[in-house]
């Protein structure tokens, strides 16, 4: 029997009567991680990984009715044994393991197989049926190890700093920003952050993740240091008047989508650093095969491609029509312009619209 099916509200477990990352309001929701397309407001009961609690309360409200589980901790709900395992995507991200009468299903949410040091690394969970994402489900997506990317980023920053030119690095505020921070070399210069990034840094630090010292752009006392600085800002800041303070800066964007030259050029930044919080093609293959699952459901991204490929590999694969990640793909190809920032374009790979907008407004007020 199918432990998970698609309903108009989201992925649903009929035996346990609960949803996983539902996109409409439901009674009981298991949340795999805090990105806007997976964690939505208005559910009655939430269940999520303990490490992610801070993020969820920050994004969905401090008073949500949230039950948190340690990774690997098992609970029983209407005969379904339910547990969470690290997905390696962002802080608190989890795969959901369901077991019922010996049948095991795992829903991955979003995941990445490389250990990035800022969240618990992906753990392979054996199962009969695996529900996977496929954001970068094409063989053109192959990531470099992150330490190599950090060398490139620090080098870019160093060269700019030598020329007294601010380095502006666009990245998603939740997850990517903290991962980047963990790899920056603070000896090069001050590390400044946009208002959308710092609150999430705080949550990471509270969870025990070691990040270098950061400060708001407006808090930089010694303005002669501005040219030596690196600034982490969400992609939505690109092209806004907020950028004017940096004068003749060099900009870059860190995302898996930067793999393709066309996307890079469309972004209109000086540099594209190929760094993603999702698994690349080899990563997806390894993760899927390692579960030993014979049945695979593909939720979002390159669904059609991945399904066909897995079937050709001898697995029984099907697509699930969900509302995850579609915004991600579009937001990536759709560069928000200064005068036309739509809500859709703010809900992207790694951040929720709510935080993005409110923080953005705050910073503008702060500078007036």
């Amino acid at each position, binding site marked *: 029997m199918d432990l998970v099916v698609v309903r108009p509200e989201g992925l649903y477990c009929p035996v346990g009567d609960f949803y996983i990352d539902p996109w409409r309001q439901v009674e009981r929701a298991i949340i795999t991680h805090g990105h806007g397309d997976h964690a939505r407001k208005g559910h009655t009961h939430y269940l999520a990984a303990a490490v992610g609690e801070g993020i969820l309360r920050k994004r969905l409200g401090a008073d949500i009715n949230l039950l948190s589980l340690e990774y690997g901790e098992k609970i029983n709900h209407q005969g379904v044994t339910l547990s969470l395992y690290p997905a390696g995507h962002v802080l608190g991200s989890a795969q959901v393991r369901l077991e019922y009468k010996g049948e095991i299903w795992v829903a991955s949410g979003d995941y990445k197989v490389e250990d990035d040091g800022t969240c618990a690394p992906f753990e392979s969970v054996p199962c009969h049926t695996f529900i996977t994402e496929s954001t970068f489900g*094409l*063989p*053109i997506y*192959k990531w470099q190890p992150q330490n190599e990317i950090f060398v490139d980023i620090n080098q870019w920053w160093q060269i700019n700093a030598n020329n007294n030119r601010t380095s502006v690095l666009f990245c998603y505020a939740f997850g990517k920003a903290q991962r980047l921070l963990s790899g920056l070399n603070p000896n090069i210069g001050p590390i400044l952050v946009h208002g959308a990034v710092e609150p999430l840094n705080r949550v990471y630090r509270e969870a025990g993740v070691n990040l270098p010292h950061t400060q708001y752009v407006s808090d930089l006392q010694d303005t002669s240091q501005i040219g030596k600085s690196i600034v982490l800002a969400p992609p939505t800041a690109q092209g806004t008047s907020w950028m004017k303070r940096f004068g003749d800066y060099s900009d870059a964007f860190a995302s898996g989508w930067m*793999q*393709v*030259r*066309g*996307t*890079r*050029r*469309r972004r*209109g930044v*000086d540099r594209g650093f190929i760094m993603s919080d999702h698994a690349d093609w080899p990563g997806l293959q390894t993760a899927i095969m390692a579960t030993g699952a014979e049945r695979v459901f593909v939720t979002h991204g*390159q669904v059609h*491609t991945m399904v*066909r*490929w897995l079937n*050709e590999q001898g697995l029984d694969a099907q697509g699930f029509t969900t509302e995850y990640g579609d915004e991600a793909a*579009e937001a990536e*190809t*759709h*560069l928000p*312009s200064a005068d*036309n920032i739509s809500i859709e374009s703010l809900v992207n790979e790694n951040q929720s619209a709510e935080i993005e907008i409110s923080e953005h407004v705050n910073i503008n007020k702060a500078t007036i």
Partner: protein
Amino acid sequence: MKAFANLYAKLDATTSSNAKLGALHEYFLAAAPADAAWAVYFLSGGRPRQIVPTKLLREFTLSVSGVPPWLFEECYQAVGDLAETMTLLLPKSLHTSNEGLAEWIEHHLLPLRGLPSELLTRQLLPLLNQLDQQSQLVCIKLITGSFRVGVSRLLVTRALASVADIDAKRIAQRLVGYTDLSARPTAAHYLTLIAPVSEAGDERMAGQPYPFFLAHALQIPTNEFQLSIGQPDNWQVEWKWDGIRSQLVKRDGEIWVWSRGEELVTDRFPELKVLVDYLPDGSVIDGEIVVWKHKKNNVDIALNIANIELSNVNQVQTFALLQQRIGRKTLTAKILENIPVVMLAYDLLEWQGEDWRSKSQSTRREQLQKIVAQCNQPQLKISALLTGESWQDLDRQRAASRNLGVEGMMLKLKDAQYGVGRTKDVGVWWKWKIDPYTVDAVLIYAQTGHGRRASLYTDYTFAVWDASENEAEPKLVPFAKAYSGLTDAEMREVDAIIRKTIVEKFGPVRSVTPTMVFELGFEGIALSSRHKSGIAVRFPRMLRWRKDKPIAEADTLKTLQALLPQASRTNDIVVNIDGIS
């Protein structure tokens, strides 16, 4: 190779001309002359014959990457660039080759030409393994003949000028015909390009033309002409011919014909070769090659150009007819008879071996008329002058353009020198074009674009309503494809709508529920048996998005048919030149 690949990456990554100029300058300063010679060749549009067919490269990529063909196609759709797709699918490699561009082209890549597929695969993999991803990309682009990067020839010229510290015009002069070299570009060629200017002066190679002087578009209302550009009297006015802009060079008892792309096209127009006996050495004439219906050769049924009014003496034919001829590899006697060309001369660049470009337009014109008259051959005709009392008067005459098969008028300042490229520093030429045809059409198919439009639905097929009697209900018939004219923001908006309205997939093409109407502009319209609608349009592009129009109010096939010029029913737009001059 790596240096050139880095240059490519820099040019590709920026839209700033200054940044590009800087990158070019830096490259040329450091490059070995042999490498620079090839770099100039590729950057200014030179393309060697395809070294390896794309099909073979595709097969090679499939076998190396283990990716099935359908998955390769999916990747290609996402990337929007074939060479890049291949590069991304190849195994990662480190850059180990120290050899330069010239070495790579001459010793590694050119020898691949004509190899059987097995041998090619065996040789190509170890070659590509010596290059990093960036260099692989450039390398694949070079061998497929699809190398293209956003630099104009003018920019390359400026970079070379700054490296050589000589005038850019001089470089432009030396660069003419460079990409047409039947010989390979060598260090010696490059050194000649950037050599200091010698006192002896004359650097011209035997058949070399001059850089073409190009016109600017005049886009102001007619009633502002007087204020902006003065009296019509100051201007030499001609029709803007719709043919192939060319230079006719006669020196040392030989004749050369160069197209605007600085391609040597003498062999394609044998009828012009006859002029070798009638033009003195040291003459260079600028003009337009057009198809001309001479009086005595009238009808040809096969080409469907019957029903010519025999009373018309000499006639310019449509560009479509010229196209049929350029497309042919061999020119049969029949084609030469049925589609004969002439050159309509409009400028004189060299006379008696002397460079006349710095003389005034009117002086050049006067001499040109004498030469054409003396030559007295049907293959060389003068481009008639037009006169009008006022700009309004000329505008009225211009209204006849469409029927005459011309694109509007050319305005050339009478005291203008003949400049280099699209410049205005020594004189100006304006093109005063007629407004395009317009029609409101419905978007019915979409396809993702290439390059910076990869993964975005930017290439569209448009349809109009066909309500012919034998159809119960009007249906949409496609008649044009267009992909330019929208702003980036509009493109994203259209893309989002397309994603929501996709009905079916046909390979890379998506059919959509028709919801959007666009005003399309196009330059020409003709009957065509190749299109479902029976109509083909030239240079279609989107003029604006008619958000205000529901699809039911889009235009009909009848509207389009009404735009067909009377004469085009027989594929024949007529101009009576003698009547005009």
